[in-house]
């Protein structure tokens, strides 16, 4: 019997309309766990580097995490993997909600799509019955609208639906896949779904998920619940409210937006508005939110209430979470009322809330600066908000200038030329980032931004405080019950970290410490992404209930795979390296590992180079960021090493030379 996982994947060939149920290899589970890990293995095996994002050969994989569907609290993530049309690298955007557990209860760990359907279809998974069905009546429908129609049509109110809106259908490079309260937004995976002619996946399951050692597993779950209660009753002092508790940043609950509105950038990640958050604004925005918000809501089997149902007067109800609350408002220099209104439309269209407002602001910046002209925006309204609605519509329909902007700031700037590139200033690996522009280089964030292939800082950072507390005694206090650290040394790193003076950024934490910290942060995110655990109870917040010390026990008791901290660390390193290798094979190199030029005013090129050198070395990569033969072999990734040599990406000589340089 298979435990925690079902042991079956669905293989869907959309070109031929073929559905197949295949048994998976338990050995792969042991090596790559599940979710992102096994998704990546499939991508490596079956998607060679020549494959373009919109090729029928590109795969679109919906993977449920290894522990999804078990009683492990907060374990509900779907990891969606494909080649991003925007970055041309592997995208592995994720969503919480209810979809992944439902897939497991239907009897599958993953759905792997290949090919392209000649007409718009949806997939209906009802336990053993799996059908590709006509979706022509859903063309142009909103993502939430689509889910509602399908549940009614199929008379299955309990079915879970992942759907794209018009943006995905029209292959907007930052189109999302929406699932009610959750969405997989980054990397333009919705565009790949649209390209494949797939409007939605509906799933309903009523089967069992088994546990290997039930009572041990339940004891672990109960410990986690107890810890959540303690942690919720004892918010961390000295950090801003949204970071003091567990869960995603509590944007739906917390009204005080001084920190975001005054420290994050407005417009096309341009303007910092010190003093914006007045009492008057606070009152107005609080009222807007209180009126709009019907209820704080959760994902499957999780007590955290990171999302909310939002009903703006006169608009259909939708669900929201996290920072999208502010991105449209700030992108347009407007207010929360506008932000929540336009987000309703954008959610139905199925768009990434990070990229979209920046792309629109970028378009208007080009107009203001004469790089685009009035003729490029025919019949555009005069008022600010109206312009954003206008652009949103043009983009999702790919009409006129919208067709160019639909490819994101990087590709749009390239196409427009005439100096437009300078305005596409907030990208990493061609992908729009959080609108943050800061002063002093932070070495931890430098490494995370540069090398985090997840492309989104909120899914890379966490665990380690973002800044030191001003007083040593507070830092010592913080360390007292910091059980999550993989090694005691991290406590000392933090205790010695000062706001000013010798032990402050950019030279403290030292290069070596920085590498350790970033490696730990990344490792925990990668473990989450294989298990399907939400970062909000694990890798993102300070002092989370899940950590490197209890995770191996969860895997042993749940999936019946013998596991300890070392073996888990090794497994996470294995598929993290495989993600790297996949991207390396597609041409990514050290030159691509860099934050936006203007992310910090004060940069330190020598230190940055040193940081990358040391981090690459720790990771087992050579100086160009390519995993070395030796490290690949240590991880059992000999097949990657062979492929690299065959393709001339690695040679024995190069490998040896790198060892010398970094020694």
């Amino acid at each position, binding site marked *: 019997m298979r435990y925690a996982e079902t042991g079956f994947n669905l293989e869907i060939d959309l070109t031929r309309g073929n559905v197949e149920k295949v048994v998976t290899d338990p050995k792969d589970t042991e090596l790559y766990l599940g979710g992102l890990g096994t998704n990546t293995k499939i991508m490596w095996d079956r998607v060679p580097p020549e494959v373009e994002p919109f090729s029928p050969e590109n795969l679109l994989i919906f993977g449920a995490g290894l522990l999804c569907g078990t009683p492990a609290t907060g374990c509900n993530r779907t990891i969606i993997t494909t080649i991003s049309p925007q970055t041309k690298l592997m995208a592995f955007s994720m969503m919480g909600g209810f979809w992944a557990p439902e897939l497991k209860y239907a009897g599958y760990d993953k759905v792997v799509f290949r090919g392209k359907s000649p007409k718009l279809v949806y997939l209906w998974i009802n336990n053993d019955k799996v059908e590709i069905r006509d979706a022509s009546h859903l063309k142009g429908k909103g993502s939430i609208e689509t889910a509602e129609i399908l549940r009614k049509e199929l008379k299955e*109110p309990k079915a879970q639906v992942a759907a794209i809106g018009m943006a995905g259908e029209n292959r907007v490079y930052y189109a999302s896949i929406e699932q009610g309260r959750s969405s997989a937004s980054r990397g333009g995976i919705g565009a790949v779904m649209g390209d494949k002619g797939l409007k939605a996946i509906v799933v309903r399951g009523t089967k069992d998920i088994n*546990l290997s050692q039930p*009572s041990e597993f339940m004891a672990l779950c109960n410990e986690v619940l107890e810890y959540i209660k303690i942690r919720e009753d004892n918010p961390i002092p000295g950090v801003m409210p949204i970071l003091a508790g567990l869960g995603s940043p509590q944007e739906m609950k917390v009204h005080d937006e001084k920190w975001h509105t005054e420290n994050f950038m407005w417009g096309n990640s341009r303007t910092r508005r010190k003093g914006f958050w007045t009492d008057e604004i606070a009152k107005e925005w609080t009222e807007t939110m209180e009126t709009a918000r019907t209820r704080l809501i*959760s994902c499957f089997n999780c007590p955290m209430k990171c999302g909310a149902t939002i009903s703006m007067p006169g608009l*259909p*109800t939708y669900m929201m979470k996290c920072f999208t609350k502010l991105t449209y408002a700030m992108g347009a220099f407007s207010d929360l009322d506008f932000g929540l209104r336009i987000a309703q439309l954008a959610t139905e269209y199925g768009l990434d809330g990070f990229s979209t407002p920046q792309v629109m602001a970028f378009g208007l910046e080009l107009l203001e600066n004469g790089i685009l002209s009035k003729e490029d925006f025919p019949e555009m309204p005069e008022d600010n908000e109206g312009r954003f609605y206008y652009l949103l519509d043009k983009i999702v329909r790919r009409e006129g200038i919208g067709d160019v902007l639909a490819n994101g700031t990087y590709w749009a700037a390239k196409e427009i030329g005439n100096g437009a590139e300078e305005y596409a200033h907030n990208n990493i690996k061609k992908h729009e980032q959080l609108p943050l522009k800061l002063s002093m280089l932070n070495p931890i964030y430098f490494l995370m931004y540069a090398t985090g292939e997840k492309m989104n800082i909120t899914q890379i950072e966490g665990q380690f405080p973002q800044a030191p507390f001003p007083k040593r005694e507070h830092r010592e206090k913080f360390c007292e019950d910091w059980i999550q650290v993989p090694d005691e040394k991290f406590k000392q790193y933090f205790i010695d970290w000062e706001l000013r003076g010798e032990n402050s950024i950019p030279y403290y934490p030292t290069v070596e410490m920085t590498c350790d910290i970033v490696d730990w942060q990344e490792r925990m995110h990668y473990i989450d992404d294989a298990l399907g655990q939400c970062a909000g109870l694990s890798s993102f917040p300070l002092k989370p209930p899940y950590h490197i010390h209890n995770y191996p026990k969860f895997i042993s008791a749940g999936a019946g795979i013998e596991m300890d901290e070392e073996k888990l660390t090794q497994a996470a390193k294995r598929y993290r390296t495989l993600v790297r290798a996949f991207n390396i094979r597609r041409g990514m190199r050290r030159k691509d590992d860099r934050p936006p030029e203007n992310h910090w005013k004060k940069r330190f090129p020598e230190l940055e180079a040193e940081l990358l050198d040391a981090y690459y070395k720790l990771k087992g990569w050579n100086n160009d960021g390519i995993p070395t033969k030796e490290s690949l072999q240590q991880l059992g990734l000999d097949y990657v090493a062979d492929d690299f040599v065959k393709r001339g990406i690695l040679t024995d000589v190069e490998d040896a030379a790198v060892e010398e340089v970094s020694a």
Partner: protein
Amino acid sequence: MKGDKKKKTIKTIKIDVDKCNGCRACEVICSSFHAAPKYSSNNPARSRIRVIRDPLRDVYVPVYAGEYTVAECAGRDKYTIDGKEYDECSFCRASCPSRDDFKEPDSGLPLKCDMCEGEDEPLCVKWCLVDALQVEEREEEVEEGEEQEELETGLESLADKYGMDKIKDAITRLSQKD
């Protein structure tokens, strides 16, 4: 026997739908506790509590499995409370032919909440960290003879499913074993 009084503990689950966050942890732990062997598997479709959940209409109703009924009611009910329209029979606890809820997904046998016999409190309550579910206990004096009633109800449900003859056969066989 008739007329004898005995003390009985009444457990009431207090359900605050305003606090429900719709996460269905109650379904998870319920199906897990009632798995055989205990906790060996979980499957919300086997749960004896269901969250009737429609976020876009702000409908969140945790309902516990009650009695099995062989026939559905002559009519159905549909509530509107505070302007919110609930689905037909939303608040009914019966395992009833009119719907799939509170039946084993494979066998179709009825499910019924037993308040997690043997545990300090029903586990759905323990796992509801948002306090939408809370339990209250009180003692009441009741007439004896209820166990008999329960037995008969159980037999009735089996008889409905398999026919009285088969039940009689089974009882005969079982008594011979002793």
